[in-house]
């Protein structure tokens, strides 16, 4: 599907898809939080049921309240991995001489492209599961930005998630980004060999 989107003179340089296990498992800390939340909610539910039964009270309300507390854990621990498992089959990445393609989407094929001129501060990230599976993620922008008060904010930068040989792909991306971006602004073949600094004088009229 991605290749059908190529321009006539566009050449494939790299293609890949995420490691299945790392992609489906996702962030390990989410799973840990889901597990802790699930066990804590189950214990609370057990205490409440036992206490209410001993006191002869109606259980329905307490059961509804406690089961509703399990929902976030079920979403993080079950629903999201199932969603990612379905999405994994259709997730593909491609790097061409013009841009980077990301394909996914369970219902319809969703494709997004990032041009090299739009890539700034790419990052490579290898988390716990990536380390085990020998893969990693290349982000096409900073993962976090910090506001004036020092708070970190997640940026949702496009990313090649859980790919093999992440450092090689990162090297390729950062080199291509500079080479192609600089060429778009001014052809590299026409540039002089040396840059002696910006020495232009400014004389407003």
């Amino acid at each position, binding site marked *: 599907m991605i290749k059908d989107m190529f321009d006539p003179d566009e050449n494939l340089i790299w293609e890949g898809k995420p490691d299945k296990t790392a992609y489906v498992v996702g962030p390990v800390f989410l799973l840990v939080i889901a597990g802790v939340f699930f066990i804590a909610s189950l214990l609370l539910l057990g205490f409440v049921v036992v206490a209410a039964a001993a006191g002869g009270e*109606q259980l329905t309300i307490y059961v509804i309240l406690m089961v509703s507390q399990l929902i976030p854990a079920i979403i993080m621990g079950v629903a999201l991995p199932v969603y990612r498992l379905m999405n994994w089959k259709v997730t593909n990445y491609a790097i061409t001489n013009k841009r980077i393609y990301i394909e996914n989407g369970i219902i*319809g*094929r969703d*494709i997004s492209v990032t041009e090299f001129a739009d890539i700034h501060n790419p990052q490579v990230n290898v988390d716990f599961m990536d380390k085990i599976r020998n893969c990693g993620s290349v982000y096409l922008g900073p993962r976090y930005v910090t506001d004036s008060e020092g708070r970190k904010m997640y940026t949702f930068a496009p990313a090649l998630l859980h790919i093999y040989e992440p450092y090689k792909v990162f090297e390729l991306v950062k080199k291509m980004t500079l*080479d192609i971006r600089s060429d778009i602004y*001014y052809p590299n073949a*026409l540039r002089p060999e040396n840059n002696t600094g910006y020495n232009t004088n400014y004389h407003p009229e």
Partner: protein
Amino acid sequence: MIKDMIEPGENLIWEGKPDKVAYIIGSPVQYLIALLMTAGYALIVYLSKTLENSYSGFNIGSAIIIILIIFVFMPIYRAINWKYVQYIITDKRIYLASGIIGRDIAALDYTAISSPDVNVGLIDKLRNCGSVRLNPKNTGVRANLSHIPDPYNVYKMLKQMSLDIKADIYYPNIMRPGENNGYNTKYTSKS
């Protein structure tokens, strides 16, 4: 109306409008959220009554209002708006027209397009259409060609035009050499 905005040297390349059914229905997620909120309200009302709590700030009337807005008023608004929604792609920019009271027109230059994507949702899949999101950078504007027919071909054309025209604005493509051997300029500081 939108064509009156086209400059003398500007050429129309594509024009279209959203699929009527997909546009009026909108995103199925909003209906799901509305239903979940209603269920939440119903649960709170049930619990507050069961616990014999004298305070009941929530009532079913609020839920009905939300349901009415999401399921009735918004689709009616979109049905009226659909008549005026129109998209045009020229060789200089992209125009998006809408607006029930007055005609609102947004013009988006190719240099403002960043990381465009194509999205086909459930309704789009059924109606054989999709949305091309142009994600203009630094504008804070949402610019989408929503629920258009043949979305993949429009997307393919747009991403090629975006790069071609953006690159030409920075340096004329016709004057570019055939090869790019990378950025190899050495920096020699004066000090």
